[in-house]
């Protein structure tokens, strides 16, 4: 897992991950690249991350992937990420395509639901919490 200030260098990360596993004998490599869309007049998105829980979430996913003979990798941005640049890359490597296709779907969806990351629209230099696009985490409401 890696966190970078600002936009991700997508090509560098894709290539480095490929090289890291070049002799691991995986038959399928599926990265998911998330790029900031221009919409609603935003100039960028901005991200807060609570790293200790993200790290635990990711370690649990590494174990789930390992049980299926696969591995997962992840990179995310901290702070401001301008439109048309990337803030998120996750990837699965697996011997077989079926496991890889299923895992990337589950991994990305669980990431969206349970990774402790908060997103803000940046408009006119101001940071506005993207509340309507955010998802309450598993177990939300415990204290209410």
């Amino acid at each position: 897992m890696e966190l970078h200030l600002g936009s991700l260098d997508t090509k560098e990360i894709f290539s480095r991950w490929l090289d890291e596993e070049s002799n691991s004998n995986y038959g399928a490599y599926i990265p998911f690249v998330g790029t900031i869309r221009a919409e609603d007049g935003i100039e960028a998105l901005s991200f807060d991350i609570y790293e200790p829980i993200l790290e635990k979430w990711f370690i649990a996913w590494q174990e789930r992937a390992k049980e299926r003979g696969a591995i997962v990798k992840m990179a995310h941005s901290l702070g401001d990420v301008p439109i048309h640049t990337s803030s998120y890359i996750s990837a699965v490597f697996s011997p077989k395509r079926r496991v890889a296709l299923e895992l990337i779907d589950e991994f990305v969806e669980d990431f969206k639901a349970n990774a402790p990351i908060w997103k803000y629209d940046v408009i006119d230099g101001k940071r506005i919490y993207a509340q309507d696009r955010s998802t309450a985490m598993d177990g939300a409401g415990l204290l209410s």
Partner: protein
Amino acid sequence: MIKVEFLGPIGKAPIEIEAKSLREVSQKLKEDPSLVDWLDKCAVAHNDTMVNSLDTPLEDGDRISILPPVCGG
């Protein structure tokens, strides 16, 4: 003392309170008007582990994190 920290957009400084369980933390936080709109949407971590029970026992020096709705990616 238990340290309670409010993550991401809540924008509230950490506080220290006396509590023996999450149930007591809940009771104290519900008294804070600035948290009314947040508590029903927020998940909770105890010393950086997500928790699901109000009966979670707490010890002096423990840390509770309040996690609002997320949107990574």
